[in-house]
């Protein structure tokens, strides 16, 4: 998993180009604001203070975890896009369970997280089972179930777990204990450490253990893995459930670290952090520690542009456009970098022979 220097340079170049275009757009639309002023506002919004760091990190946590979740599935070649649904499942379960689970704060937080993880895993198992029963591709089923998850979450929150004292808002009761804040007066919560730990664990398992080896080889060629003895259906179920567990954890952390209850519509929908997580899994080399800076980068795009919104007065719609432009630039750079890497490695070894047995068959 070595990202060689040329690939890094290409990525950096792509990022610069993306930021330059974004800056030009802001300067053009932002009513006379200079480019340096916009850049300063961006930096201030993303990293300017403890509070802005906290906001960036808190935004990055669910992106990182759902990104890991998607990365695990993609690694195995399972195109499961059900991260938003699993994320919501974990969040609803956490919001519903936390007030009911008694115990001292530490125990309450831990058991709530276990419930969230389980809910995410069960939701993932449901996706696989549905896909199998209906014989519809998991890609399609997982996308559809994201809407199902949003709907069920609203239904459950409204009918079963709604906080009776909340007026107007559909939300569960306040959690009795939260993930502790690491920087006071900010939203930098302990879930960040958990997310980084999960990412490091994932990296370690992938590169240094036999389950990781199996995941890599299964992703390279599931037929070869099956012939070597990996039971195909069971393994894909297994991988999906693990991915669901990680997304469920993200939901639990979001409830225990940010919202402190499940608020309907706060986690699901089209602005779900899980969509950004999927983008992260696609942009960052699968399964690498680069997921961490990648998540921070995607989060800072959001918080930084919030800063630009505040200081320069561009609209939040524009900042969505700018985000998209930067992401497209990064995706372009990634494609170029991967091509450069491939060309490099092909040049090292023997020329790639293309044995043609097809035509010899009769």
């Amino acid at each position: 998993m070595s990202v060689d220097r040329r690939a890094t340079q290409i990525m950096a170049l792509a990022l610069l180009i993306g930021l330059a275009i974004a800056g030009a757009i802001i300067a053009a639309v932002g009513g006379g604001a200079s480019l340096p002023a916009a850049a300063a506002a961006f930096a201030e919004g993303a990293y300017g203070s403890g509070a802005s760091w906290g906001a960036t990190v808190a935004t990055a946590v669910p992106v990182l975890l759902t990104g890991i979740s998607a990365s695990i599935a993609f690694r195995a070649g399972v195109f499961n896009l059900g991260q938003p649904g699993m994320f919501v499942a974990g969040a609803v379960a956490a919001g519903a369970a936390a007030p009911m689970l008694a115990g001292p704060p530490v125990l309450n937080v831990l058991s709530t997280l276990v419930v969230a993880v389980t809910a995410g895993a069960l939701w993932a198992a449901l996706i696989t089972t549905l896909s199998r029963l209906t014989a519809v591709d998991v890609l399609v089923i997982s996308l559809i179930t994201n809407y199902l998850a949003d709907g069920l979450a609203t239904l459950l929150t409204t009918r079963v777990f709604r906080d009776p004292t909340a007026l107007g808002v559909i939300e569960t009761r306040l959690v009795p204990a939260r993930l502790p804040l690491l920087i006071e007066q900010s939203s930098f919560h302990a879930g960040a450490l958990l997310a980084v730990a999960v990412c490091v664990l994932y990296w370690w398992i992938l590169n240094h253990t036999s389950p990781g080896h199996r995941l890599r080889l299964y992703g390279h060629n599931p037929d070869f893995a099956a012939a070597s003895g990996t039971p195909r259906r069971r393994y894909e179920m297994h991988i999906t459930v693990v991915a669901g567990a990680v997304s469920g954890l993200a939901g639990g952390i979001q409830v225990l670290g940010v919202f402190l209850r499940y608020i309907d519509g706060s986690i699901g929908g089209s602005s779900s952090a899980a969509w950004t997580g999927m983008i992260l899994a696609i942009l960052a080399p699968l399964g690498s520690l680069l997921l961490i800076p990648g998540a921070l980068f995607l989060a800072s795009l959001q918080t930084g542009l919030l800063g630009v919104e505040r200081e320069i007065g561009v609209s939040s719609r524009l900042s969505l456009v700018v985000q998209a432009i930067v992401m497209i630039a990064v995706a372009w750079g990634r494609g170029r970098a991967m091509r450069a890497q491939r060309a490099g490695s092909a040049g090292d070894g023997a020329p790639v022979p293309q044995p043609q047995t097809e035509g010899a068959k009769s």
Partner: protein
Amino acid sequence: MTNALLCRGIRKSFGPVHALNGTDLTVRRGTIHGLVGENGAGKSTLMKVVVGELQPDSGYLELNATPGLIRQQLSTIPEFSVLDNIIFGAEPLRRGLVARRAAAERIGQLMEEIGLPLPLGAEAALLPLALQQRMEILRVLYHQAELILMDEPTALLTPNEVEAMSALLRRLVAQGHTIVFITHKLREVEALCDAVTVIRHGVTTHHWPDRSFTIAAMAAAMVGDAGGADAMPPEREGPDLTRADVLLSVGVGGHRIDVRAGEVTGIAGVAGNGQDALVEHVCGLADHAGFGAVTIGGVPVDGWPTKRRRTAGLRLIPADARRWGSAVEATLVDNVATAEVSPAFKGRFGTLRKGAMARHAAETVAAGQVVTAGIQQKAGELSGGNLQRLIAARELNSGGTVVVAHEPTRGVDFKAARAIRGRLRTFADQGGATLLVSSDLDELFEISDRIVVMYRGEVAGEVPRAEFSRARLGKLMGGIGAGETS
């Protein structure tokens, strides 16, 4: 012009593989011409050259009729209607729109002429295979083909459907069409064809311009033995096999194939007669009806997943190295370790013992005499022969007792093929059991102790080494003399 098609000395190579090696073919207008040969003889390649899909390296080709090819794997577009499938690629247009009604009228005429009705509005995927095939025939007729090339058209049909198709072909010929009928089923050739050409290893071995051929003569020409004396394969020194343990046993139809320690059992047969299913069944990769209980080392393994069978000593050298035998983007180390890492390379908490894995990979590379830039090279960068050497070495040097080798030398250069055959023989000589599934009779003759012939998913016969002959095997493979077991 009396000849619809004339080929002289056509050559076509794919890398080191000579698919066509100076092939001749003369097809007279208004005849049904049988093109016969073993699997891999070059029949399909020749047809692709005729329709211009492949450029020959050299040779002379004269076409006096528009050719239309009906492939073995039908090229139906499943979601399209029958009508749209037929007109695909030559849609009649009226003001930029497809004039379906006009097309339907023309196809209706065609169907009437040749007496072949089809529901034009139906979704193609819903038609039975026999009707899909008729649709393809209509398609080439609609595209105004006069020379219809049919690649193994009866492979998918039941006997009754074969009858119907034969009648259709005769009607087409009566209307002035010419047909090239590719098959390895000699009975059908005898029943239908006006002339026959046999090719073997890309070379025309025999040509009958009229109906003077016989099944026996075709069988002999097909397997490369022009009748007469059969060259007896040399006797092989070996242990007394009758008392040795049965290491692998599998039921096929009413028969049971036993592979004993020290023995190479060959499975012969024209491809598509159940060999693939046999391999999948033995390895636990898929369930197939018509196969019976499997034992490995005397233990019944029915219902066991592949991994457990491998633990019991089963190994597989698959027919398609790139699809089933390797991960081309992974390193040689990872390919040798496979997805299911042996316990020998696992430390605590499932950690990988990478040093031991690398040493094992280096040993495997050395044992297989794989030419490589290093064990960190990607498997896809190896040549076909080297990749196959690597897979053979991996499967044969990992403590297994039974190896299933499925077309282990297909598409592999001569030197590597010889090395792999030698290794398969050695594996048995050292006490293992080898099941060699191959469509190459020379290969089977070289290392097998006996050959079981499969025909239509059944055992057509079993021939001990002392009785090996191309004529005998050829007949069994062609479905003649089934039930004749020794």
